[in-house]
C-alpha cells in the first residue's frame, strides 16, 4: 500500500506467476516425474456391481516374468476415510461397484503389469445390487455396508445403523407447518441431476518410494497434500515425519483430487520394494469410472408463497446417490442441507438431505460441492412459481433474495449480501426485460433466463492454515504455503497479498507449495477457501516479517517505527525502508535480511522470517437437531448468471448465445483471474446443462471416453461470455476478499434451463437437456420425467 492509502497490488491483474512455467513445459505435474528402474502398478477391477469375493488365485500372475508383487485387499484391512471410515484402498471381502480395484500388481514394465492383471483369477458370488437412492432407502434393501454402525465417523455426521443411509442432514428453521397454513398457494416440484465427471485433463497419477532408510515419499496429483498425508499415515500407521507428499502443479482438480485416491494403492507395493519407485497411472477410462464422480441427486421442493410472491415456507428433500463409498460424500450432503432453500430470506424451512449408499461409482467433491445440483432445482423452482403466480422471475427474486440483515437458512444474520446488486447488474447487462430478437429462421427460438446461487466453504469450524515468508540476503523472498495451485491462481493471488503488505514487487517473491516436508500446514485446497484462509495466513506472515524489519529499522534509522514505512521502487528493483518524516533517511529492505549489524560490529535480530497462523475466528458449531447457528460458516459468496439460448426446433439443438455473470468476491485480488474463473465456471456449467451425463446402466459406466462423454469445446462457447462484479468487503477476509472458485459455476446450469424453458414454455425436470428432450416437447409429446421416484 502506498503512503496515500492506495493498493499497489490488490485489485490489479498481475499476470500469473506460474505463467511462464506453464507455457514453456517447465511446470512439473505428478506424471512428469520418471525415475530409473521404476516399477509400474496396475489393478484388477471388479466386473460386478456388488459381489462377495470368494477366492482370488494370483499364482499364474505371480509366475509371469517381471512381476514383483500381486496383492489383495488383505493388505488393506484397515478402513479409512476423511469423514466416515468406510473405504479400503482395495476391495476387502466384497466389491461394491463395477470397476472397484480388487487386486494390485507391480511389475518391471507397465505391459507386464497389465498382462499379469489378466492372469489373476477371481471367484465372485454376485449379491443383489442397488442402483438408485430410492431403492437404497427402501425397507429391506440390500445393505451395502452392513457394518456401518461400527464405522468411525466425524461427530457432525449421522449414519443410520442397519440402513444404506450414511448421513441424514436435518435443517429446521421456524415453523413450516405454520408457514404453509398461512400460504396463499403451495407448489411442489421435483428434479433429477445425474452423475457427471470432473474431467480434469490430467488423469490421476501417483508414484511412491519407500527409501531404504525407512521414509516414504509420494508424488501425487492432489489438491490437499496435508490431508493426503494424514489419511495415508492413518491407513498404514506411518508417523507423519516419515511421510512426504509432493504435488507441485495439479492438472486441474475441481474436487476430483481433493481426497486420497490412488495413492493408497501404491504404498504397500512401495513398502514391499524398498528403494524402487512404484508408479500408477489412471487411463482416461479409469478416470471416468474410478476417480470420484459428482453424485446424482433427486430433489423435491414444496414451497408456500403469499399473494405477492413472498416465500413463507420451504420443505425440501434431497436424495443423494452417494455410490459405494461416501467417506467424502457425506459432507456434500451436509453442505446441501445447510444451503438447501437457496439465497433467500425465508422464515420457515425444513430440509432433509440424505446420503445413500448405492452400487454406483464413488461420489465425491465436485466444483460447487452440492450447490450446482441443488440450485438446478431451486432456481428453476423460483421461475416456475413466478410464472404460475403471474409475476416476473426478476420480481420473484427481488422480493425474496437475501439483503443485509436477512437471515440465512441456518439462522445467521447476513452482514453483507450482494444478491440484489448482482441481480440488477446481470438484468441490465443481459437486457433481460427485453424479449430476445427472433432470428429469421422460424425453426429457431431465442429466449433469456436468469438464476442466482450461493455457496459457503464447507469446512470444519476450526480449519487451519499457515504460511512462512523468508527474506533472502538480496531483498527477495520465499513465500511458503501448502495452498495448492490447481489452476485457480492461488500462487498469484497469495504472492500479491504478500507483495501488498511488504510493498515489494511481486517478481521479488517466489512462492513454494506442494511439499509437506518443506512447507507449513494447510487443511485443504477445496471449498473456495484459499484466498480467504491461506490469504489470511500469508497476510499475517508478511505483517510479521514487516514488524521484524520495522523493529530493527527503528535502531538503524533512529526513529520510532510508527514513523517508518516501506516504499516500493520498481525502477531499482527494490524496496526501501524509509523514515517517513525524513525520506532521505532510508535503507534498502535487504539491510535487515540477516538482522542488523550495529556500529560496534555486533549483530541483532537474525534472519528475517515471518510466520502467519490462521484459523477461522468466527465459526461456531451448529445445533445438530436443526442446523441453526449464529455463524456456522466463514462466509457466503453470492452471484447471478444470465443466459440467452437459441433452440432449434428441427434438430433439438440448444446453442447458448450469451452468458453473463456477476458475483460479489468482497474485494477482488486479481481482476483478470477473477474473470477467468467466472468464464471457466460458466462453460463448465453449460456442459452440465446441455451435454454431460455419466450414463449408468446396472452399475456400468457406458460412456468412458471423450467421444461418448462430451465436454464443451471451443466451438460450443457463447459469442458473449462476460464477467461482472460487485464488491462488498468480507469483514474477516484478507483486504476484504472472499472465495469465488466454485460459486461461479453454481447458477450457470439453471440459468440456461430457465432460458430454454422461456423458449419452449416447458421446464425440464432434469439435466442435461438433450436434443431428444427438446424434440419431445416440440412434437407435443409429454416430456419424460426423470425426477420421478
Amino acid at each position: 500500500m502506498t503512503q496515500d492509502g492506495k493498493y499497489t497490488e490488490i485489485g490489479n491483474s498481475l499476470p500469473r506467476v506460474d505463467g511462464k512455467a506453464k507455457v514453456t513445459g517447465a511446470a512439473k505435474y505428478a506424471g512428469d516425474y520418471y525415475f530409473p528402474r521404476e516399477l509400474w502398478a496396475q489393478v484388477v477391477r471388479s466386473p460386478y456391481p456388488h459381489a462377495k469375493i470368494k477366492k482370488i488365485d494370483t499364482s499364474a500372475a505371480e509366475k509371469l516374468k517381471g512381476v514383483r508383487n500381486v496383492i489383495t485387499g488383505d493388505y488393506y484391512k484397515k478402513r479409512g476415510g476423511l469423514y466416515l471410515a468406510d473405504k479400503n484402498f482395495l476391495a476387502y471381502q466384497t466389491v461394491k461397484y463395477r470397476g472397484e480395484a480388487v487386486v494390485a500388481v507391480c511389475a518391471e514394465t507397465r505391459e507386464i503389469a497389465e498382462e499379469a492383471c489378466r492372469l489373476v483369477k477371481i471367484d465372485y458370488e454376485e449379491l443383489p445390487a442397488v442402483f438408485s437412492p430410492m431403492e437404497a432407502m427402501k425397507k429391506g434393501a440390500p445393505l451395502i455396508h452392513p457394518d456401518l454402525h461400527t464405522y468411525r465417523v466425524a461427530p457432525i455426521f449421522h449414519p443410520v445403523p442397519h440402513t444404506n443411509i450414511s448421513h441424514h442432514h436435518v435443517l429446521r428453521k421456524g415453523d413450516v407447518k405454520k408457514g404453509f397454513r398461512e400460504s396463499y398457494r403451495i407448489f411442489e416440484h421435483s428434479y433429477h441431476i445425474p452423475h457427471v465427471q470432473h474431467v480434469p485433463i490430467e488423469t490421476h497419477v501417483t508414484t511412491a518410494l519407500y527409501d531404504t532408510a525407512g521414509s516414504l515419499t509420494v508424488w501425487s496429483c492432489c489438491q490437499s497434500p496435508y490431508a493426503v498425508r494424514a489419511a495415508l499415515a492413518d491407513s498404514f500407521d506411518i508417523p507423519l515425519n516419515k511421510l512426504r507428499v509432493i504435488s507441485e502443479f495439479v492438472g486441474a482438480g475441481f474436487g476430483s483430487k481433493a481426497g486420497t485416491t490412488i495413492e493408497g494403492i501404491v504404498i504397500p507395493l512401495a513398502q514391499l520394494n524398498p528403494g524402487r519407485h512404484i508408479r500408477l497411472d489412471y487411463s482416461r477410462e479409469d478416470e471416468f469410472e474410478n476417480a470420484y464422480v459428482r453424485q446424482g441427486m433427486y430433489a423435491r421442493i414444496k414451497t408456500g408463497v403469499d399473494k405477492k410472491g413472498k416465500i413463507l415456507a420451504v420443505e425440501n428433500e434431497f436424495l443423494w446417490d452417494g455410490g459405494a463409498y461416501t467417506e467424502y460424500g457425506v459432507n456434500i450432503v451436509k453442505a446441501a442441507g445447510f444451503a438447501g432453500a437457496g439465497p433467500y430470506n425465508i422464515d420457515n424451512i425444513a430440509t432433509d438431505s440424505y446420503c445413500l449408499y448405492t452400487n454406483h461409482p464413488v461420489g465425491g467433491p465436485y466444483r460447487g460441492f452440492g450447490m450446482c445440483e441443488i440450485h438446478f432445482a431451486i432456481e428453476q423452482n423460483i421461475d416456475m412459481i413466478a410464472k404460475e403466480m403471474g409475476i416476473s422471475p426478476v420480481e420473484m427474486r427481488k422480493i425474496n433474495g437475501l439483503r443485509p440483515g436477512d437471515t440465512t437458512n441456518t439462522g445467521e444474520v447476513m452482514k453483507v449480501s450482494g444478491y440484489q446488486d448482482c441481480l440488477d447488474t446481470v438484468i441490465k447487462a443481459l437486457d433481460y426485460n427485453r424479449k430476445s430478437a427472433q432470428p429469421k429462421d422460424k425453426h429457431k427460438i431465442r429466449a433469456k433466463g436468469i438464476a442466482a446461487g450461493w455457496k459457503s466453504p464447507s469446512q470444519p469450524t476450526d480449519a487451519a492454515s499457515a504460511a512462512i515468508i523468508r527474506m533472502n540476503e538480496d531483498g527477495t523472498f520465499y513465500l511458503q504455503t501448502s495452498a495448492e495451485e490447481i489452476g485457480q491462481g492461488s500462487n498469484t493471488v497469495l504472492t500479491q497479498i504478500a507483495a501488498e503488505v511488504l510493498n515489494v514487487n511481486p517478481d521479488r517473491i517466489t512462492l513454494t507449495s506442494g511439499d509437506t516436508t518443506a512447507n507449513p500446514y494447510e487443511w485443504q485446497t477445496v471449498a473456495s477457501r484459499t484466498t480467504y484462509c491461506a490469504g489470511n495466513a500469508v497476510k499475517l506472515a508478511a505483517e510479521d516479517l514487516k514488524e521484524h524489519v520495522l523493529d530493527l529499522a527503528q535502531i538503524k534509522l533512529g526513529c520510532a517505527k510508527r514513523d517508518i514505512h516501506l516504499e516500493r521502487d520498481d525502477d531499482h528493483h527494490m524496496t526501501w525502508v524509509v523514515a517517513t518524516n525524513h525520506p532521505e533517511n532510508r535503507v534498502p529492505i535487504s539491510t535487515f535480511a540477516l538482522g542488523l549489524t550495529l556500529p560496534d560490529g555486533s549483530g541483532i535480530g537474525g534472519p528475517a522470517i515471518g510466520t502467519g497462523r490462521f484459523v477461522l475466528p468466527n465459526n461456531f458449531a451448529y445445533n445438530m437437531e436443526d442446523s441453526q447457528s449464529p455463524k456456522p460458516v466463514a462466509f457466503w459468496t453470492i452471484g447471478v448468471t444470465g443466459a440467452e439460448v437459441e433452440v432449434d426446433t428441427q434438430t433439438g439443438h440448444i446453442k447458448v448465445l450469451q452468458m453473463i455473470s456477476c458475483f460479489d468476491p468482497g474485494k477482488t485480488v486479481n481482476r483478470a483471474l477473477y474473470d477467468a474463473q467466472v468464464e471457466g465456471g460458466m462453460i463448465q456449467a453449460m456442459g452440465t446443462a446441455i451435454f454431460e451425463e455419466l450414463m449408468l446402466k446396472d452399475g456400468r459406466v457406458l460412456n468412458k471416453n471423450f467421444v461418448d462423454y462430451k465436454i464443451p469445446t471451443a466451438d460450443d462457447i457463447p459469442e458473449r461470455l462476460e464477467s461482472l462484479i460487485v464488491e462488498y468487503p468480507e469483514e474477516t477476509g484478507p483486504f476484504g476478499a472472499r472465495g469465488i472458485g466454485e460459486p461461479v459455476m453454481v447458477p450457470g446450469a439453471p440459468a440456461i434451463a430457465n432460458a430454454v424453458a422461456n423458449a419452449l414454455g416447458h421446464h425440464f425436470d432434469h439435466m442435461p437437456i438433450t436434443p431428444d428432450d427438446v424434440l419431445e416437447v416440440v412434437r407435443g409429446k409429454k416430456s419424460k420425467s426423470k425426477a420421478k421416484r
Partner: protein
Amino acid sequence: MHTIEFSINGEALTLLVEDNQTALRVIREQAGFTGTKPGCEAGECGACTILVNGKPVNACLMLAPELDGKEITTVEGLADGENLSVLQQKFIDHAALQCGYCTPGFLMSATALLNENPHPTRQEIVEAISGNLCRCTGYKRIIEAIEDAANSGTKKIPAKKTKAKGGARK
C-alpha cells in the same frame, strides 16, 4: 525394436524404441520432453499435440518408429532461450491458461495454425483448436490470445533446423 533418428526442438536424437510404443511415450519417457501431456491416449483431447515437420499431430496416435527422419517440435521448443514466442506471451497476457495442463497442446495447435495462416478468422482459430480440450478456461481467452498473437504479426516459428540424419520411412 527399432533404432530411430530424428530431431526434436533442434536437437538430433538416436533412440532404440519398441515397435508398438507411441511417439508420446517415447518423447516423454525416453527423450524427456514432459511438456507434451497425456490426457486420453486416444486422440480425443489434444493435450499431446506436437509438430511433425510443422504439422500438428496427436503424439498418442503416432507410433514411435514413425518419428524416424522427422523434425519434431514440442512446447519446450517454442521459446528462443529465455524469450517466449509471441503466442506464449499472449497466453500469459490474456490469462489464457489456468491449470496449464492442456496449454502445451493448445500452443502447438495454434503455432501450426499461425505458421500456415498468419491472419486467421475467429472461426478458423476455433476450428484449429477444436481438437484440444480445456476444462478450466472456457476457451474465450485462448481464442483471444491467438487472435492477439496473429494481430501482433507473429513471426513464423520454424521447426529448428537440425536435420535428422535418419530418414528412410519404414
